[in-house]
Structure formats: C-alpha cells, structure tokens
C-alpha cells in the first residue's frame, strides 16, 4: 500500500478526521472589541457545550491539499462531455460566477428595506420577463428552489385554480415515460396518479387520452419533447382534449433546451410549467445542486402565484404581499437569488438570437451522434430526435451485456456515462444528450468510443461486463452499502485487551 500521497488516481487520501491533530487550526479571527462573555453564565450551564467531539482540527494547508486531491477524482464538464439524457450538462460560463459574487449582490439581506434592494429586485424582474418571453407564458415565479420544487408549486397552482372553480378534482395523468419526480410530486399535492401508456411511436396516445380524461382529472403532466427526445406531435390536440374537460396541461420543462427560441409551450397549450435553471440556463450542477425551478403560468393562474410578488410602484420595485388568492410561500425569502443571477447572465450573453442558435446546435449535435451510432445500437423509436436520442440495449443484451455495463465501459474511454435504464418504457435504455457545448471533435470521439464498445461486445463481452478498469476505484459494492449502511465516520474503538 502506497503511503506517500501522489497526485494520481492511485493516491490514498485520509478523511479530514483521520488527518486531524489537536491544536491545528486554519483560521484567525480579529480580536474582540467588546468584553468576552462567559457562555455558562450567559446561556445557563446546561446550555453550554463542552466541546464538539471528534470535530476535525486541521491547518489551511491540510484543507487545500485535501480538497484539491479529492477534486481530482471527479469527472466534470470542464474535463469533457457528459452525455446524460435530460440533464443538459452544458458548459457553465465563468462570467456567471463573477456576476453572482459581485459584493452588492452577494451581501444583501432579504429583509432589508425594498428601497435599499432595488438592484436585486430589478434583476429578478428582468429574469421573470425573459423567462415569460422564452416560454410564451404570462407570469413567472422565481421562488421554487429546484425542478421538483417547481413541479410541486405548479401542481399546487393548478389545484388552486380548480378549487376556485369549485372542485380540485382527484387525479393526475402521467405518461409512463415520465421522470420519477412527476408522480412523487402529484402524490404530495394530494392527487392520485394514473399512468397513461405511450403509443408505439413513443408519444401520448390521444385516443387513449380522450377515453380517460373526465371531470376527475385535474391535469396531465407532460414533458415535451418527451424523455425519448421526441416532440409530442399531437401536443395541441392533447391540450384541447384536456381543456375541453376543464383539466389543465402541466409541462415539465426539463427538456427546454430543445425548444428555446424555436417553439414556446405557451403557444401550444401549456397552462403551467417549470424550468430548470441548472439545465437549460447553464447554472452549475456543483455535484448535485443548487438548482432553481421557476414556474411560468398563463394569466388565469397568475392570481394564485406564491407570495410575495414583485410590483412596480412609480419608479420603484416593491414586494407585494396583498395577494388574496395566492397559494402562499413555498420557501422562505424570494428564491435562489444567486442562481437567478447566473441564469440572467447566461440569457444576456446569448440574447434572443443566440438562444435560438444554441437550441439548433443542441439538435444538431444529438442528431449527429444518433446517425453515427444508429448502425450499432437499436434506436428506441424511429421518430425524429430533438436534443437527445434514446437507444435500447436489445442487440447487446443478446451477448449478455446490458446498458449499465456499456455505461461503465464508456468510462474507460474517458467519458461520463449516458443515462442508463431510463426512461422505463425502453428496455435497457441508453439516453444521450450532448448539448450545444460539444464540438464535432468531442462528438466524434464519443461516437467512436460507443462503436468500439459495440465491437468489444461482439468479440469479448466479458471485457465490457467487468468495466471500468481505469478509475480510482474498481466497481463499488453498492449492495453492501445498502445492506449495512455506514453513513458517517466514527472514531475507531481502541482494540479491547482481553
């Protein structure tokens, strides 16, 4: 076992607690300019803590080395393509980071007077305007913290509108190709879920829809283009069928990267939708968050939007709480402001024309990849792909190799895996979304990796089944992690002497 740390995948790095040593410190505070207070006296003896047991004590050098080494074990957009479907892993522009850190934006308190927060409010108002324009909707709330949160908010809005008409109704229709957050959200909002099967072209079956829509149905949640990357050709008809029975059309905006600038959900019948700023609008994923999930609505849903809302009074912005029909707040304060700044910076950098160009580039890249690998992998549905394409592993499964293993082998070629096994309606799905960020060169490398793996499966399937081989860790034992979960470090007990 190599004890000297080396900047390589074979390095061994201890946890902070294992590197800790009493008396080490990485901080220095200014001296107190007021008398120090005795905690036991001020708080009551029972309230004062003796120490934070086993909390690490490390130096600044320890900290920077530790986290720098850890970072080298991660894949990232800055290193290469992430072909993850419906994740839209596009480049995170660094100008966004600088904008978000402008002192005058980072250091404002949400409770300071409106008159002293006009800059922040102007940013939010401008973003609302841009998002409404892009989606073709009438009003926007920036409160929800992420996509799932936006979904929940959107369904609550639908519920509020229906309630105001006398009956909130009972069911939400969800296609079997939907992302898991959709049914989870519907359930949280007090609705039961009815799954609706896709037709043989992978789209909503309008005949089936017409059969099941009745006055018990509150809404249908669709993703468009759907999770197969295919545009719902009958979306206008879908909206009509729902509206005719007083139901609403909710759109999951996860795939907005296929539509921005070329088609607007508000124009094809969507009543309420959410956006994922951390997908379409380039805010960084940061290993899993933060995100932001604004919700855009048509006029008739506007009175129910979360409170407070921005209101222009003379030449000033104000936070307006006088919203008698509002569903109330869905979180404290106003939204993930730091993320909103980044999204607005992205929109400003592209402009109206640029957003459309980015969308077309995303479509181009996905279709290019599809063309290159279609001879080797079974395309799930023949319909034209938009920003992502979905294959099935059925040809490879005949040689005993499934999509999960192909994904792991892709790592050896230097790429992050695509989305495996989703959507559930495709057997052994391979879901690939390159985004507009990628150059032809990167796409060619990706395609040739996929082709090479397909050939490996023909000649030596076991090689693929045992992947990955070139990573810092070999395949990780997720089974034991789930059977006997260890979710924190504990100080090892000294060996007991018998």
């Amino acid at each position: 076992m190599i004890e000297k740390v080396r900047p390589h995948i074979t390095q061994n790095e201890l946890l902070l607690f294992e590197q800790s040593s009493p008396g080490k410190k990485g901080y220095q505070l200014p001296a107190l300019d007021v008398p120090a207070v005795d905690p036991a006296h001020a708080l009551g003896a029972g309230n004062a803590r003796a120490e934070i047991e086993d909390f690490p004590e490390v130096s600044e050098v320890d900290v920077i080395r530790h986290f720098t080494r850890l970072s080298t074990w991660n894949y990232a957009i800055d290193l290469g393509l992430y072909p993850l479907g419906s994740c839209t892993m596009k480049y995170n522009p660094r100008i966004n980071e600088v904008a978000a850190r402008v002192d005058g934006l980072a250091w404002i308190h949400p409770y300071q007077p409106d008159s002293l927060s006009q800059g922040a409010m102007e940013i939010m108002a401008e973003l609302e305007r841009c998002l409404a324009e892009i989606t073709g909707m009438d009003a926007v709330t920036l409160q929800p913290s992420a996509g799932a949160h936006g979904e929940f908010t959107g369904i609550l809005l639908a519920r509020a509108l229906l309630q105001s008409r006398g009956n909130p109704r009972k069911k939400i229709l969800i296609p079997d190709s939907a992302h898991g957050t959709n049914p989870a959200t519907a359930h949280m909002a007090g609705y039961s879920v009815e799954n609706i099967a896709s037709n043989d072209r992978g789209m909503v079956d309008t005949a089936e829809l017409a059969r099941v829509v009745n006055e018990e149905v509150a809404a249908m949640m669709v993703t468009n283009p759907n999770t197969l990357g295919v545009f719902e050709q009958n979306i206008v008809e879908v909206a009509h069928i729902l509206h005719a029975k007083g139901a609403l059309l909710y759109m999951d905006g996860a795939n907005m990267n296929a539509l921005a600038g070329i088609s607007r959900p508000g124009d094809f019948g969507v009543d309420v939708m959410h956006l994922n700023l951390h997908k379409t609008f380039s805010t960084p994923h940061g290993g899993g968050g933060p995100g932001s999930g604004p919700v855009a609505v048509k006029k008739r849903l506007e009175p129910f939007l979360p409170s407070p809302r921005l209101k222009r009074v003379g030449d000033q912005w104000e936070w307006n709480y006088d919203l008698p029909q509002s569903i109330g707040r869905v979180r404290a304060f106003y939204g993930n402001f730091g993320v909103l700044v980044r999204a607005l910076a992205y929109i400003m950098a592209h402009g109206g024309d640029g957003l459309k160009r980015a969308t077309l580039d995303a479509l181009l890249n996905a279709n290019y990849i599809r063309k290159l690998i279609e001879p080797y992998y079974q395309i799930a549905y023949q319909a034209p792909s938009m920003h992502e394409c979905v294959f099935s592993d059925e040809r490879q499964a005949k040689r005993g190799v499934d999509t999960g293993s192909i994904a792991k082998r892709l790592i050896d070629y230097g790429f992050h895996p695509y989305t495996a096994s989703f959507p559930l309606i495709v057997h052994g799905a391979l879901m690939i979304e390159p985004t507009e960020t990628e150059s032809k060169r990167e796409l060619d490398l990706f395609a040739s990796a996929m082709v090479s793996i397909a050939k490996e499966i023909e000649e030596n399937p076991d090689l693929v089944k045992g992947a990955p081989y070139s990573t810092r860790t070999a395949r990780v034992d997720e089974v034991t992690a789930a059977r006997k979960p260890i979710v924190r470090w504990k100080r090892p007990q000294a060996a007991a002497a018998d």
Partner: protein
Amino acid sequence: MYPENYRYTKEHEWVLAEGGVGTVGITFHAQKELGDIVYVELPKVGALVEQGKNFAVVESVKAASEIFAPVSGEVVAANDALSTAPETLNSDPHGAGWIVKIKLSAPEEVERLLSSTDYQSYLGAE
C-alpha cells in the same frame, strides 16, 4: 427446485398452507430477477392482507418491488431475521427466506393457485 407441496402465483410468490396458516415468500425465479436484495419492508404483526394486494416491499440497490399477497388473512408472524440478513431471500427463498405467516381467512384461495408443475410451465412459457 419448486416444492410440490407449495402453491405459486403468476407474480412469483409461494404459499405453504398448514393448519389454517400460510407461510408466504417469493420464488427462486423472483429473487434471481431482483438481484442482490438489500432490504425487506415487512408488514406489522396483526396487519390484514388481501389476496392480490401489496403487503411488503423488497428492495435491491436500484429497484423496489412490491410483493402481492397470494392469500388473504391476518399477519401472525413476520420474518424479522430478514432485517439483519436480507440476503437470505436470495440464498434460501423457499425456506429460511420466508416473509410472513398469515392466518388464512379464506383457505379455499390456496387451491386455486398454481401447482408446482403449472408454475414451472408458466416460467417456461414466459
């Protein structure tokens, strides 16, 4: 492989009825399909179950599968050993990997389930 004195369902559960009590589990085929089992969500003793309705959940790393009751009745015992050793469902699905014991409310349900031969034909056809 599939004991003669057990009865089976198309959802891959088995039941062994003895003296008005049915011991219930999942079949060898089911555990193979599920892969390594990491957790079993057991019903409480005293719970009432209905034939065909979900009464337990079996989890592998990537999936959670509902287990449907092959017979109706009251849960009189749950196999707590599965909490510490869920892998028993994989290693001995027809024996030590039993899930619950149910006091049968409608013993005639058992007769209408598949016999060992019929279940194996069903598997062959699947």
